[in-house]
């Protein structure tokens, strides 16, 4: 039996910048994970359906547009609604510090800002993956 960690890297909403998401996706690949990348402009619903069909262990959201309080929270709520609480939800991008506690309260397990070494994200996922 060979379990691999599967991760969905997703870009919700109107945000055309995915260099960061791609760097993270590549780092996770290099750490031996299977990474599904959605591409740009996803709705929360598309992300959650994709997470379900791909049966991922982790969803990583990336957003630089400032709409994280809406979009990240939408994804968290939809995951809950679909009883997918065993999926580890994390986020990254341009997120003001004061928003982080609110996001955590809404169900985003961790938030990684600019300058985070990718190894930190890899370690976090390996340690916190729920199944």
């Amino acid at each position, binding site marked *: 039996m060979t379990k691999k960690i599967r991760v969905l890297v997703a870009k919700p909403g109107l945000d055309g910048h995915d260099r960061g998401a791609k760097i993270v996706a590549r780092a996770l690949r290099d750490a*031996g994970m299977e990474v599904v990348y959605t591409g740009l402009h996803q709705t929360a619903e598309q992300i959650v359906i994709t997470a379900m069909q791909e049966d991922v262990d982790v969803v990583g959201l990336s957003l630089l547009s400032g709409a994280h309080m809406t979009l990240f929270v939408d994804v968290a709520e939809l995951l809950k609604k679909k009883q997918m609480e065993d999926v580890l939800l994390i986020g990254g991008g341009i997120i003001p510090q004061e928003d982080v506690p609110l996001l955590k309260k809404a169900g985003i397990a961790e938030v990684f800002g600019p300058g985070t070494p990718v190894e930190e994200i890899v370690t976090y996922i390996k340690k916190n993956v729920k199944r």
Partner: protein
Amino acid sequence: MTGLSDKIRAGDHRSIARLITQVENDAPEAVQTMKQIHPFTGKASVIGMTGVMGSGKSSLIYELALAYRIQNKKVGIIAIDPTSPFTGGALLGDRIRMIDLSSDEGVFIRSMGTRGMMGGLTSALYDVVEILDAAGMDIILIETVGVGQDEVDIVKIADTTLVVLIPGLGDSVQTIKAGLMEIADIFVVNKADKPGIEQTVAELESLVDLVNNPERRIPIVATSAKEKKGIEQLITQITEHQLYLKKSQRFEQRRRQRYEAELIEIIRKRLMDFIFDEKKLKTTVDCCIDQIAKKQLDPYTAADQILGKILK
């Protein structure tokens, strides 16, 4: 686990996804469910798509899926991308081209890594095809990894194999090489909006004329996924190929081929598991060493006995 197979037969997406993960991970609990669903498989049309990387396979699959959805058919899509031989990781990016299908309940898409399997496929693929089939998908579209010239294993699974080419890949000598070019039931020349399309189609025409099958000439369809051209013709050719298979009894033959390949794959996996499970191997071997040392048994007979036990 009976619950899981019932949910799969009812087409529940979450259950389908879970069982696929189990078979991908070689989880022992998957076996029971796989046994339960087998009697309910065999209805779906399995269409394989292979071709060089960047030939637009994902975009074509998207267009085909849309067209089949208009016919109200349920569509399962399996998109395979390479697993790194160095790290075991994979970046599965085929879904990017199909994302608009995500919110359609009649479509199920799964991305898979090759996980060390050669030939452009992944060893769990046979199981995944059975799962999607049992879940009531009418059409199963499989996208292999972008292949070179001899990743041709898709023919062992698909009822209809599409080989996707694009203009400007090389001269006519390339097209008569062995491998990829031998497996096409239908040639698709995608990116027909690009220059050189006429020459590529003409070269394929002359290749197809060299194939000696009086019953059926391999069709060539020029498509442009970008401009949504040629998709209807492609669907027509796929339907005609499947009618031809059924009329000529080749359909049965192909299905038997698939089960043969699947069975061999299961046996291969089990043997590999046995051989690479050093503890188990050692325990099995240990029981005979005494007898061999006391000359009650020779090593060859011992080997036959052990293999007989595994293969029984």
